[in-house]
């Protein structure tokens, strides 16, 4: 078929099932936008900053479990995507980023808005392409989607020089992709599965540590079945939050720096740890030399380079989490394992009772606000968070009940992620309420996209936990720097309610927990974005807290 490169790229995206693109046009990507002008099947959402386009695409991916697409022009448009791409990379999210580029004849000449986006994004993408022939477009798009979503997902960037968009050629979409350098191993090694089962059957104090890999492998059901079969408690990493309903009797919540006490204590007592789809990040393990030193660790991951990268493990299984868990379940069933409630489980349950969350009452605090939010929201509501104390209160006190309903920047810890992420989530799931649990500092980093939320009809709720400060940094200053609050005072600017109104959204400031509950209930029903300014005490700490470099045993409770 004779067509231009821009027509080819849009057609190729449609063939990959793309329904939504988040982006901003500019000189070097205009031919593609010209095609999008008449496009009926793809919804283009005009963001107000490319960073937000990347975060929205990332959230779209996390909510749907499939790829999310963002688009930007060359130079500053492309570099503005970088924080979003790095965020997606750290959390293994399949974002497809498409960037305009100066014409091939000008590459290397420092032409207007030329930037080496391939060089810049090589360390933060799974792979990247610069199109050098119009005919290659169908193959490159197909490969990009395959690489982004297969195995351990991750972002892929396609750089499109302008002459590759305007050039016309005979385009064939009937191409096979065959990438000899990327063939993830999906099936677990049978012998390793037997060995894992041996360890699990003999374990006195087994625990399952589940991570973000469960989301991407869609292994929720298998995880639950295995936990119930083994009668083993489940803890998660922060990225794994929500892979098991957090009100399940066997779920203990997140481990880590701001993990729950019962989770941190339990994993440090276990004798066998079945770790699935985790990468043992420093925020999860605490001082790594003292992490589960007595335990035998079974590590299931689809990425072989994660095995023994951060901790030494007893038994590695390189495989897709869903298939590996199924194999373990089959083997356990074959051996006719039937577990009763063990002494170990009783001990864990006692811990869980001892440290259980209390009902929200009294003062309007960050922790209480998050608990009230859980009470008000339906089970299927989606929550995104910013970064800092707000994020850790969400992690500690917002019980996630359904898969893919909790979205947060774990690996990169990107302030400003939550709000555009909530827009991306809303675009993917217009049927459910979406809330950004925000800090005042983070929200100010991407609040300009209130314009997107209003004009593109993406109504979300922003609950700003407003401590007039860069709270998490201030907490560290309070605990480790002798209360020397260097540049963390945000001085109560702006008035968030009025800011929201200026964008055509609704803004409310609340003064009590009761009022917050009422306003949230109304906001859930509203068909417009609502920003709720929630004043909280400046000096509220997030606890428990494992100080940096300390073992998970050394929690400040």
């Amino acid at each position, binding site marked *: 078929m004779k067509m231009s490169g821009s027509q080819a790229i849009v057609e190729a995206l449609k063939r990959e099932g793309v329904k939504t693109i988040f982006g901003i046009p500019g000189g070097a990507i205009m031919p593609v936008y010209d095609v999008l002008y008449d496009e009926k099947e793809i919804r283009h959402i005009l963001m107000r900053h490319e960073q937000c386009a990347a975060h929205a695409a990332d959230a779209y991916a996390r909510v749907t479990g499939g790829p999310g697409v963002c688009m930007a022009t060359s130079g500053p448009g492309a570099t503005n995507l970088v924080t979003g791409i790095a965020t997606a990379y750290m959390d293994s999210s399949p974002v497809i980023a498409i960037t305009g580029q100066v014409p091939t004849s000008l590459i290397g000449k420092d032409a207007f808005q030329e930037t080496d986006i*391939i*060089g810049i994004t*090589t*360390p933060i993408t*799974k*792979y990247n392409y610069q199109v050098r022939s119009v005919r290659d477009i169908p193959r490159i798009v197909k490969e990009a989607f395959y*690489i982004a979503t297969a195995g351990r997902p991750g972002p892929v960037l396609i750089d499109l020089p302008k002459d590759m968009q305007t050039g016309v050629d005979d385009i064939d979409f009937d191409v096979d992709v065959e*990438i*000899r*350098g*990327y063939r993830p191993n999906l099936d677990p090694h049978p012998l390793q599965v037997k060995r894992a089962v041996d360890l699990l059957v003999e374990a006195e104090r087994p625990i399952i540590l589940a991570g973000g890999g469960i989301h991407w492998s869609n292994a929720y059901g298998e995880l639950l079945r295995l936990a119930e079969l083994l009668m083993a408690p489940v803890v998660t990493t922060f990225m794994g939050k929500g892979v098991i309903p957090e009100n399940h009797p066997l779920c203990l919540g997140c481990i880590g720096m701001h993990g729950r006490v019962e989770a941190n204590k339990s994993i440090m007592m276990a004798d066998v740890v079945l770790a699935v789809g985790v990468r043992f990040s420093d925020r999860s393990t605490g001082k790594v030399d003292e992490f589960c030193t007595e335990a035998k660790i079974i590590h299931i991951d689809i*990425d*072989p*380079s994660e*095995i*023994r*990268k951060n901790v030494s493990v007893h038994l590695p299984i390189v495989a897709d989490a869903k298939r590996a868990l199924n194999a373990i379940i089959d083997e356990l069933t074959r051996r006719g394992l039937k577990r009763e409630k063990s002494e170990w489980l009783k001990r864990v349950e006692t811990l869980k009772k001892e440290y259980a969350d209390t009902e929200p009452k009294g003062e309007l605090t960050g922790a209480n606000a998050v608990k009230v939010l859980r009470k008000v929201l339906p089970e299927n509501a989606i929550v995104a968070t910013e970064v800092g104390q707000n994020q850790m209160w969400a992690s500690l006190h917002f019980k996630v009940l359904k898969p893919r309903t909790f979205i947060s920047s774990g690996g990169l810890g990107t302030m400003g992620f939550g709000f555009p992420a909530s827009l991306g989530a809303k675009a993917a799931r217009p049927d459910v309420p979406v809330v950004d649990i925000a800090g005042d500092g983070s929200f100010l980093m991407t609040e300009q996209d209130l314009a997107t939320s209003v004009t593109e009809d993406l109504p979300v709720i922003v609950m700003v936990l407003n401590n007039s400060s860069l709270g998490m940094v201030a907490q560290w200053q309070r605990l480790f720097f002798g209360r020397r609050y260097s540049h963390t005072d945000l001085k109560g600017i702006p008035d968030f309610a009025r800011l929201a109104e200026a964008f055509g959204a609704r803004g409310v400031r609340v003064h009590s927990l009761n009022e917050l509950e009422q306003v949230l209930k109304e906001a859930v029903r509203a068909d417009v974005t609502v920003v709720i300014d929630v004043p909280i005490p400046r000096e509220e700490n997030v606890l428990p807290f494992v100080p940096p470099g300390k073992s998970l045993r050394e929690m400040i409770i």
Partner: protein
Amino acid sequence: MAEHILAALVEHKPGVLYRVSNMFRRRNFNIESITVGVSEVKDLARMTITVRGDELTVEQVIKQLQKLVDVIKVSRLNPDRSVVRELALIKIHTSDSKAKGDVVNYANIFRGRIVDVSRDSMIVEITGSPDKIDAFVELMRSYGIKELARTGVVAMSRGLKSLKVEE
């Protein structure tokens, strides 16, 4: 720390060397040398990489290399069962005839070749294991080395074992 030799078959296309060397820098691995050239397969290039590190580090290096989409296959060569070679060109200061004679003699002992002679310098071309080249370079220091260019290591397993792409 021990030195390890890795051989990798990679896609023969622009940017591959950047992807590989960038990964080494970003992951904090130390490359001693890296060489790239064509291989027996048309669209594949072969890289020989020498790295320093303990067992765990080499294991990670191999996995991180394999993770790169453009890297097709990586293998670790056993130094005792491989041919390991490097080529060096050394321009030596030789102002008098005694120095010239010495250099010719040493070059002969090391099976090097004199490839250029001028009034006060000579260029020796020498091939061999990196150790052998180190030894020769050391010997030449007392005469004065004007220029030194080494290719870095290329290596190949002896006998049946070879680095091949499975179909």
